[in-house]
């Protein structure tokens, strides 16, 4: 009963209930509409043409004297049949083709994708009208054409989903165990695409109704059919005499399309809801504890006292990611923050620069730089302007993943020069000269080439050097490096660490080095803070902690590093610093 999950969730929200109820009523009307009225929807009556609402004709009569209320009820059938036809055609073409294209790839995929792009780039209405010369005027054969034209929606969805799972282990396992490709596709892969297909289906049903009613409105359908589009056509011809005739079918069409769309949205929300908790912006139940200013704050370059960071949960609670942590960095000192992923070390680093995501809440504590407060619950969110006094100039940041941290649309040179012009107020020529000398400093020989290159034209190691050059370009007092070597090749890792050490010696900056690797800590740091699950478990002098870790967690981290075959870095620490 897995698949009842999202549907049940849809029914838990009031809008979802309303939408499902409306669609259910439409379905009932489509099946038994005529039994809710004693009028014949097609019986003209020349003596009661274009009448207003009365006890006899609740919604009045149309230009042939037919009962509007009855036609409205019965018209739901044509609408649902049209929607079902389009969806069925699109499903039957889009899903199997998408599945084969995604599963086998190659020429089949190329041809199918080309055809799909071709169909998507065509104006549906014009093709539909041209096709009418071929297929005749039946609204249902037109709906078949619409189904073909919207099939790319299902095709792309299925193809993408199949491509994503075809190399998954369970699909491999099924293949090895001798299941035929068709069986694998229908059993394992269909399960994956089911939910997105339900969402897409509701959208396409809406599109289908829109096309059906517009064709009939144009008078291109079968005018003897009782449908909302035909009613619109009649109403439009009598717009000067009885505009109300337009109102009922227009309302019915809009409500039905809206219900399909809203059902799709509600279903998607339900699916996403089960995957992640929705973050709310502000929540009154969050308790923020006050922290008195620590007396020794101003002595340190940076001091973090009792800092807590949390994210609001959908149920009104708060998910704490950092818990009352305290540490400090002095001028010219290198502090390592070590922990596994999820320990809160990166959140801590971001909070110092005011780079936390919008939804983050500072629950307690403060961050101060040279005694100036950067962050505290009392101040709430730091103003963007106040923070700019610090960013780049006093505190700088080196990211983890070099390639994604350079804007692909701008040359390296521009990305180095612009901050210096903005933050240091240098002239452009001075900034360019300084950028070249910085690139030299970080060990780049051909500075002219790199300066004029776009990020995609340089290697990852080169990009990390550029980012380090950018970080030190405005002479910061504190450098925050978030796993600066993790994304790099092993040989380049050592070079980048050497570079950081050189720069630290040269500029006398304080450095916070966030890492999961004790080897890096041993190599570079003076002191270390060990974090686990958002709390500090141990902190102190690097040599003390390496020699005699008190906490079991630290010992675990240390021994995992030894198992992880990096004795060389340990040896360097053995030599002492």
């Amino acid at each position, binding site marked *: 009963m897995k698949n009842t999950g999202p549907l049940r969730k849809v029914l838990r929200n009031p809008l979802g209930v309303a939408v499902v109820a409306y669609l259910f009523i439409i379905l009932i009307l489509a099946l038994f509409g005529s039994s809710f009225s004693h009028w014949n929807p097609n019986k003209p009556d020349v003596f009661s043409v274009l009448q207003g609402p009365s006890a006899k004709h609740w919604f009045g009569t149309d230009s042939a004297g037919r009962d509007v209320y009855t036609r409205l009820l019965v018209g739901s059938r044509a609408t649902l049949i049209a929607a079902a036809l389009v969806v069925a055609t699109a499903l039957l073409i889009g899903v199997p083709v998408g599945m084969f294209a995604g599963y086998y790839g190659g020429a089949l995929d190329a041809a199918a994708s080309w055809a799909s792009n071709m169909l998507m780039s065509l104006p549906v*209405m014009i093709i539909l009208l041209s096709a009418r010369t071929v297929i005749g005027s039946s609204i249902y054969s037109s709906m078949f054409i619409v189904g073909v034209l919207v099939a790319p929606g299902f095709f792309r969805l299925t193809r993408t989903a199949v491509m994503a799972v075809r190399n998954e282990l369970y699909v491999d396992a099924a293949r090895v165990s001798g299941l035929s490709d068709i069986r694998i596709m229908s059993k394992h892969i269909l399960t994956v695409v089911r939910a997105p297909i339900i969402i897409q289906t509701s959208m396409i049903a809406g599109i289908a109704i829109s096309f059906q009613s517009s064709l009939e409105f*144009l008078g291109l359908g079968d005018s003897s059919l009782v449908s909302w589009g035909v009613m619109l056509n009649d109403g439009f011809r009598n717009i000067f005499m009885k505009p109300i005739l337009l109102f009922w079918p227009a309302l019915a069409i809009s409500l039905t399309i809206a219900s399909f769309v809203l059902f799709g949205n509600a279903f998607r929300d339900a699916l996403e809801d089960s995957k992640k908790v929705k973050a709310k912006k502000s929540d009154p139940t969050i308790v923020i504890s006050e922290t008195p200013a620590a007396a020794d704050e101003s002595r340190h370059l940076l001091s973090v006292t009792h800092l807590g960071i949390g994210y609001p949960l959908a149920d009104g609670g708060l998910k704490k990611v950092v818990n009352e942590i305290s540490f400090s960095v002095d001028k010219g000192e290198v502090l390592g923050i070590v922990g596994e992923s999820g320990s809160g070390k990166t959140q801590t680093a971001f909070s110092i620069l005011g780079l936390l995501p919008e939804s983050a809440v500072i629950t307690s504590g403060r961050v101060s730089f040279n005694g100036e407060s950067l962050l505290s619950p009392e101040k709430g969110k730091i103003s963007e302007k106040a923070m700019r006094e610090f*960013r780049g100039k006093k505190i700088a940041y080196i990211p983890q993943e070099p390639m994604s941290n350079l804007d692909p649309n701008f040359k390296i040179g521009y990305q180095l020069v612009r901050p210096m012009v903005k933050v240091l107020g240098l002239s452009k020529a001075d900034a360019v000269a300084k950028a070249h000398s910085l690139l030299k400093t970080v060990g780049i020989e051909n500075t002219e080439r790199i300066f004029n290159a776009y990020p995609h034209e340089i290697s990852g190691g080169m990009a990390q050097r550029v980012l380090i050059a950018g970080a030190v370009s405005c002479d910061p007092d504190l450098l925050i490096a978030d796993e600066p070597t993790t994304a790099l090749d092993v040989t380049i890792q050592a070079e980048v660490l050497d570079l950081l050490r050189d720069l630290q010696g040269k500029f006398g900056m304080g450095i916070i080095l966030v890492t999961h690797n004790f080897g890096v800590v041993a190599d570079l740091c003076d002191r270390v803070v060990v974090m686990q699950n958002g709390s500090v478990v141990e902190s102190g002098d690097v040599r003390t902690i390496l020699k005699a870790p008190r906490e079991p967690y630290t010992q675990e981290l240390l021994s995992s590093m030894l198992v992880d075959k990096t004795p060389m870095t340990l040896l360097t620490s053995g030599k002492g610093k």
Partner: protein
Amino acid sequence: MASFLAKRFLSGVLLLFAISSMAFFLIYASTTNIASNILGEGATPDQILKKSHELGLDQPITTRYLSWLKHAVRGDFGTSWANNDSVVSEIMRRLPVTLSLVLIAIFIAAVLATTLGVLAAIKGGAIDRTVQILAVAGFAIPGFIVAIILVTFLAVKAHIFPATGWVAFGENPANWAKSITLPVVSLVIATMTSSAQQIRSAVKSVLERDFIRTLTSRGISRREIIIKHVLRAAAPAGLTVLSLQFVGMLGGTVIVEKIFALPGMGDLVVNATASGDTPLVMGIVVYTVIIVIVINLVVDLINGWLNPKVRVQ
């Protein structure tokens, strides 16, 4: 860049060839008794034979196709069966009406959708919710119903705008503006809401990218980051959305032109298909596909120019 464009251009030509050939065979294969339909019920078998010969219908379909293709590549699409006018001159009479509608509408829709989408993405809050609600509403109320609502209230009831009719710009600019306002507004409302929503998601996904955080850490102001970096990175996605909307509008004008009785391509295609005027239908299909291909080429060109990876090669 040049090879990229050449490839796109070739693919466009191929698309045009494929669609027009498919349309030719389908339409001709399925229409029967063409000559007697044109001549009406009273025609003698002799007259029908003569007409068939005149239209070349007595030749095999491949011969007819090759002859059509030979003329078509030179820009000659024959004459309309309904009134013997040249197909090209008929289309040229109608095209300006449709193009002026669609171009004005897509321009306004682009400006509004971009403004709303970007604001919703960066400001969040009320404007964000408004854009999302509008997107559902815009999807739920089809464009032609919007047009009907506008006609009913602003033309039929309030008499602010003319309900129907077209005034050429050269004739009377003020009346031209009046006659085009409601059709344009209908097209804008129908496309703007979903574009705004899609542009919002494009901007939001750029805002979450790593380099935005790094630029912020360098001391670049948020304003500059949004104007220079975010909009630049979100532009290709936004342009693609708008080009799809443009194609959608070409279809949307069919109904809008019908509602407001405008003498454009949409009106022409409805009449041509209703009367089975095959040469005219073929001409309209070819012209429409050419417009779509040109728009896609322009978007490719701009996207290529915006994307250094394509540009530098």
